[in-house]
């Protein structure tokens, strides 16, 4: 049952977190330990009184399109500090839109360009937020 699995994971989380508290002086971890014991009690209650989730499926939680979106986002955040914010953001937005609908490439280029311009003027020129320049820009 799903709730029982969640409860077991929570107990594992409790054990790992509690073990970590031994690395610090006791007075600095008294509050986290207090919280962890309540966490354990609640996990046990969840294990004993689970609720039914008839429509649960792992595939529904991570369908292909969501995994693609997540991977693209991770790739973008890893690359933009190295290559530069504006070039990476421009390319990422086009690739992202293209990945989900391969119809209007021209429209995507326009949208990405306008978006970059707005971000540039609002954040860099108006609010003085500086973005990483990286290798390109």
């Amino acid at each position, binding site marked *: 049952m799903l709730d029982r699995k969640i409860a077991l994971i929570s107990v594992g989380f409790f054990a790992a*977190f509690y073990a970590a508290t031994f690395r610090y002086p006791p*007075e600095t971890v008294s509050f986290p330990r207090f*919280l962890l014991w*309540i966490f354990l009690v609640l996990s046990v209650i969840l294990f004993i009184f689970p609720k039914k989730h008839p429509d649960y499926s792992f595939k529904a939680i991570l369908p292909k399109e*969501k995994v693609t*979106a997540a991977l693209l986002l991770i790739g973008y955040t890893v690359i933009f500090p190295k290559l530069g914010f504006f070039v990476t953001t421009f390319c990422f*937005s086009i690739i992202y839109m293209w990945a989900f609908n391969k119809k209007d490439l021209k429209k995507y280029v326009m949208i990405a360009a306008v978006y970059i311009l707005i971000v540039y003027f609002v954040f860099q020129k108006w*609010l003085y*937020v500086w973005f990483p320049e990286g290798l390109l820009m």
Partner: protein
Amino acid sequence: MSINFMEALKNILTISNILLAAGGTFMGIIFGALPGFTAAMGVAVLLPVTFGMPPASGLILLGALFGGAMYGGAISAILVNTPGTPSAAATTLDGHPMAAKGEAGKALREAVFASFLGGIFGVTVLLLFAPPLARISLMFGPPEYFLLAIFGLTIIASISEKSLIKGLLAGLLGLLISTIGMDPLLGTPRFTMGVVNLTDGVKLVPAMIGLFSIPETLNMISSYFNDDSVNLVNMKEFRKIKIGFPSLSHIKRHALIYIKSSMIGTYVGMLPGAGGSIASFMAYNEARRSSKHPEKFGTGISEGVAAAESANNAMASGALIPMLTLGVPGDSVAAIIMGGLMVHGLEPGAQLFARNGDIAYTFILALYLANIMMLLCGTYLAPYFTIATNTPKHILSVCVMMLTVIGSYALRGNIFDVYVMITFGFIGYILKCHGFSVIPIVLGIILGPIAEKGLNGTLLISRGENLLLFLLSRPISLILITLTLVSVGVPLYRTITGKGKKVAESTE
């Protein structure tokens, strides 16, 4: 107070701040009108825009966004039968049937006018009650702050979730996350896993942006493949809709509904975690219960729209009362606005009114201004906001995703905050899929330091006395303990006996 009030009036009546309020309301209505976008997400992704502004201007923008989003949900609820925000779910019950009967203009007029009155009522309560309530918080010592934090968490976990246990677990997870970083007693870094950037703790703003935005953005992509065509609207048809202002006799006829629903909304807003959907359904049910023709509710009558909309807009201001006075946000958006206050170095609670009274009053007055802007935008432009619902979801999703990255980065110019945002976003998504709410996590992160400082302080001043007896000997502590026990006990009793009504509507 009067000096601060006059200063606030001066602040608000500048061209730039009026424009900010107008722009914020406009953006808020667009966010609200877009199904899949929540008010919390809108405020979270635009929060970083306020970092470079003076605190008063930033708060004006956030307040206007919040007010606009609460109303915006009604537009798509009425015109396309899809509530833009969960708070507008009750509006669809009568709003869409009215539109189907050819009374879309009437329904939109009712929605904007009721939202306006509800909003004004809520802000007035906020203006009248927040300063004295803030003064009460001066009577709080460490034990009271510790118990207040615990009460805030238990009530949000018990009211807003389908499962009390999961709500409490999520709250505890938030509290545990708040313990990462420097310990307040000795200054020792805890649970940082050797990551220098975590010595300062997990930054609230990127965590909030991730938790509120990434799950919605991922869901948006899914809905693009599953039901995108459902929301396509015919603009030619909608352009013909005339809205205008309601007549005096109409206002008189509905006066009782406006007042009652606004009172319900404000009250529900003050309860941490209850949220707009609960407020609007409660007001809707009350209007139906006290009506002479309850059987007509749900068939397309303006009373239903009036009740739901007055309540959810009054709730918006009600939710700000505990946040501004005690530092305990009433709902997810109030939590984000609180994050905004903290970024600007402002501390919610009594100190906010004592030290930064001009900013506190500017914020409250900005909410009045936002309501006026909302009335004007809603009356003259409402059908045009539905254009936004025609934007393909994959385009909206990439725009929001980039804003979340930019926003997290803009906080300190540190890429680590972007990684925090993404990590919390994915954690939030997985937890939501498994029946957890992200609001208690955010509350936990906010209330964690208050609770820990309060507990440490209590242990110090109790001088080895029995902690429970010490807490019970203090009147305010006793009240807070009773409230905490009731907030956990009642839903637990209902769950065990099966008497509880399902509060399935999430407040997010």
